[in-house]
């Protein structure tokens, strides 16, 4: 089977199976086995089969394209464009494959599966866009989701029977007692998997948006899983509303894109009659123009609408005669040279990035993610660390060809700020899950930063490695919480003796996230991805000293902070003597079904970053980085138009030895510093953190209160909103209601009058009729004699009469 036909089917199956599982659980969930336990099996098997399909398609991809990216032509600047040149014609021809030319392998498959509707030029379709990134994402998401499903079977077993929620106190003083919601949890998980995979599978931005919102609603459901808890429902609302803010920007971006380009599709889609509809990518970066970023014609035309109208007036006649159109077209290049339309492109990019900011919890919309930890831990592991929050990063990666350098700079700054703020907060947090949540935010900032400085592979590579180790960390923390029934690290300690598997898998996760490894030789997955980011930041700072230095130091400092808070976490939880003996005595290792996925994920977290060396037989070059390299968008990122002097270096430049070594040394040494600091404070307990706390009391408080973001937002947005609502309530209650009440009073009086008419006049008439009918009926009643024979006689008389009539009628 052709790869072009196979991949959509395999990935489509992986995508749709969770939907089937969701539907079945919605319909029959409570009846699946005892207390709906079958729902978990259904959901797990659905995503497991999906994982098989995804991995199979990954193997197919490797089998077809090899492990390494396509050869680059002699390090030329246009090397990428070179192979991308082959890419886009292949795209435009759908799935044409010319095996003769090595360079012309299609790197992406896109096509419409089903047209939902066509409104003029607006075509809403279900389509797919599959390249190496898609395949890699599928493999990652389904694998982690499968592990988490298994894990959740164990973690959520409390929900199999009636639950008494000790965190909810009812008005009568009792704790809430409710039936278990086991099946519902898996129902949401399935829906989430479907949505997430659909988001990755999607071939157009409209479909992306739909699934974007779907993952949002799933997140909402899952955060609010313990809906009775005030904090949980608040957190769910917060997540949803904050995301709306970002999505608003995203809609603006979508509109700008569609208004300018007239399409939602990513790649060029060939429809049934061979007509090629050019997608966003090829319109923004025209293959004929060497994949250079340029404002497309549509954007230029709409930006220069003054001039367009002028030309239209000059050519009398209706509806833009051909002469006017050709005139306009002929002047488009000159307008473009004047940067008409470039702003539109920037707006589109920033708008789309807004959506990503919301979803990926970037500054200033990062506030929802820590609160989202109210959801069950498997949810945190799957949704709020590994997949959904990474969707924003994924989308930025996917749209990188569309982003102008200015947009990228915005992205980089956003990521940079996020990275720093989140890392600082994570240092002081004591809730184990919150630490991880801020860590997640911080790492997402890393990714954004990487993408913003042009490190396409670096950012997405970190996305994938982070997904593994962060989900691992979350699941380990879940295991700890499961064992201790508390989130507070201050009550833990020494748990590694009680739960070794959890402790050491978590250690693997910590090592992975801080990027531990033997420099220049081998390391955990984070070692590779973080190195790549730091290297790219360094490379960028060489090209743009002004911005670049900020980014580089943020990245390096972030590495140090990461190492510190992660090992702070690990030491506080697992090392040293126990702080709370009651909790310690009751702690126990989690069941097999929970710690086995941990082991699987630990293996992946450790190894996923490695690239098999080239000299290794058969598997040489196997690695995520090379896989992502195959999906790298064509064309250079270029230079800023609005901001002169903003230049983006090729990502390959960061592989240069000088940069690479420098970056590795920086990253490793800072991480080591952070690690040592944490060891001194928490592992060996040579220094007392409380002293430091007192010394830096204002800073500590500032960080403990999360930079007062929630208070700030409360003051800026929530309070004014409450005030406006109060005003509106006043108007509603006093003015409008009063008016309506008076109206009603009048209507009542009128109705009373009407009632009199009704009762005496209308009813009188009706009663009179009824009385007449009644008397008529009783007088006619005597005709009904009950004599059968009489009836027969009458029938016969009627028959004869009828015959007579007919006879006369026909005689006439």
């Amino acid at each position, binding site marked *: 089977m052709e790869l072009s036909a196979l991949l959509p089917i395999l990935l489509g199956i992986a995508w749709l199976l969770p939907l089937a599982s969701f539907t079945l659980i919605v319909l029959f969930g409570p009846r699946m086995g005892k207390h709906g336990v079958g729902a978990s099996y259904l959901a797990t098997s659905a995503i497991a089969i999906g994982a098989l399909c995804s991995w199979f398609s990954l193997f197919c991809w490797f089998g077809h394209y090899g492990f390494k990216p396509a050869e680059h032509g002699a390090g030329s600047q246009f090397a990428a464009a070179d192979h991308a040149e082959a890419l886009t014609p292949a795209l435009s021809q759908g799935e044409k494959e010319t095996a003769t030319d090595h360079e012309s392998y299609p790197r992406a498959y896109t096509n419409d599966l089903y047209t939902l509707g066509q409104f003029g030029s607006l075509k809403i379709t279900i389509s797919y866009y599959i390249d190496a990134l898609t395949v890699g994402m599928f493999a990652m998401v389904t694998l982690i989701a499968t592990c988490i499903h298994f894990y959740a079977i164990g973690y959520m077993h409390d929900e199999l029977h009636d639950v008494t929620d000790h965190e909810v106190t009812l008005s009568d003083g009792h704790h809430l007692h409710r039936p278990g919601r086991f099946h519902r949890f898996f129902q949401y998980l399935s829906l989430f998997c479907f949505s997430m995979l659909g988001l990755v599978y999607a071939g157009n931005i409209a479909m992306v948006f739909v699934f974007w919102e779907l993952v949002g609603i799933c997140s909402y459901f899952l955060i609010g899983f313990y809906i009775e808890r005030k904090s949980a429902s608040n957190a769910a609302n917060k997540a949803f509303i904050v995301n709306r803010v970002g999505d608003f920007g995203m809609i603006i971006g979508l509109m700008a894109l569609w208004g300018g380009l007239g399409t939602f599709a990513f790649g060029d889609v060939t429809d049934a009659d061979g007509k090629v509809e050019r997608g966003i990518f090829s319109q923004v970066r025209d293959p004929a123009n060497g994949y250079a970023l340029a404002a497309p014609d549509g954007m230029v035309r709409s930006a220069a609408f003054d001039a367009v109208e002028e030309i239209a007036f000059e050519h009398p006649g209706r509806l833009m005669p051909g002469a006017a159109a050709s005139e306009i077209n002929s002047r488009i290049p000159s307008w473009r040279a004047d940067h008409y339309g470039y702003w539109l492109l920037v707006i589109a990019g920033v708008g789309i990035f807004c959506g990503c900011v919301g979803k990926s919890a970037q500054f200033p919309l990062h506030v929802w993610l820590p609160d989202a930890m109210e959801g069950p831990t498997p949810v945190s592991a799957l949704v709020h660390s590994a997949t959904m929050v990474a969707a924003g990063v994924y989308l930025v990666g996917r749209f990188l060809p569309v982003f102008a350098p200015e947009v990228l700079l915005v992205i980089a700054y956003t990521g940079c700020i996020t990275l720093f703020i989140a890392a600082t907060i994570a240092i002081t947090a004591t809730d184990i899950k919150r630490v991880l949540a801020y860590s997640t935010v911080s790492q997402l900032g890393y990714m954004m930063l990487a993408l913003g400085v042009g490190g396409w592979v670096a950012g997405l590579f970190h996305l994938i490695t982070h997904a593994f180790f962060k989900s691992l960390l979350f699941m380990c923390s879940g295991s700890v919480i499961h064992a201790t029934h508390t989130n507070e690290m201050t009550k833990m300690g020494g748990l590694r003796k009680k739960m070794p598997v959890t402790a050491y898998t978590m250690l693997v996760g910590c090592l992975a996230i801080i990027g531990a490894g033997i420099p220049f030789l081998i390391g955990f997955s984070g070692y590779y991805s973080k190195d790549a980011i730091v290297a790219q930041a360094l490379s960028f700072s060489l090209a743009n000293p002004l911005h670049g230095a900020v980014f580089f130091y943020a990245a390096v400092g972030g590495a140090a902070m990461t190492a510190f808070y992660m090992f702070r976490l690990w030491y506080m939880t697992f090392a040293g003597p126990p702080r709370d003996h009651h909790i310690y005595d009751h702690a126990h290792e989690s069941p097999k079904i929970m710690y086995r996925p941990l082991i699987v994920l630990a293996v992946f977290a450790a190894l996923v970053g490695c690239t098999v060396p080239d000299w290794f037989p058969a598997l040489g070059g196997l690695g995520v980085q090379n896989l992502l390299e195959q999906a790298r968008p064509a064309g250079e990122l270029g230079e800023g138009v609005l901001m002169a002097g903003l230049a983006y270096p090729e990502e390959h430049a960061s592989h240069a030895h000088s940069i690479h070594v420098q970056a590795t040394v920086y990253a490793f040494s800072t991480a080591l510093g952070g690690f040592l600091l944490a060891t001194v404070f928490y592992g060996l307990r040579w220094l007392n953190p409380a002293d430091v706390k007192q010394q830096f009391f204002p800073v500590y408080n500032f960080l403990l209160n999360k930079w007062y973001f929630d208070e700030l937002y409360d003051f800026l947005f929530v309070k004014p909103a409450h005030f406006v609502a109060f005003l509106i309530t006043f108007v509603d209650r006093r003015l409008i209601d009063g008016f309506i009440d008076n109206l009603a009073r009048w209507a009542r009086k009128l109705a009373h009058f009407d009632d009199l008419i009704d009762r005496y006049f209308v009813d009188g008439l009706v009663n009179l009729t009824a009385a007449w009918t009644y008397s008529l009926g009783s007088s006619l*009643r005597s*005709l*009904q004699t*009950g*004599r*059968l024979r009489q009836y*027969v*006689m009458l029938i*016969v008389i009627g028959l004869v009469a009828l015959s007579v009539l007919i006879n006369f009628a026909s005689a006439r």
Partner: protein
Amino acid sequence: MEPVGISHFMTVGAIMFVCGVVCMATKRNALGVLMGIELVLNGANVNFVALSSDFLTTNPARGLGLDGQFIALFVIVLAAAEAAVALAITLNFYNNHSTVDVDRADELKG
């Protein structure tokens, strides 16, 4: 008289029909009424069958064809059903009133 045609059959049918009607109208015995109904149905059947015949008319194409016989068959079958139910009703009536006089069955008169 010769040749025999549909008209003759229909005359027979008419006579049976009228006899049946008179039977229904005059008999006080419920079963007599029932017999009258049977006669009426048979009179109709004679007509149907005659009209379905090919050689009782100079223009068979305008006849009913086999459809007439189909209808006759259905009439026969339904008459059987009707007789069964009518008999059951009559017996019930007889059980309850100890008579089969239809003139006595006038409890629902106005």
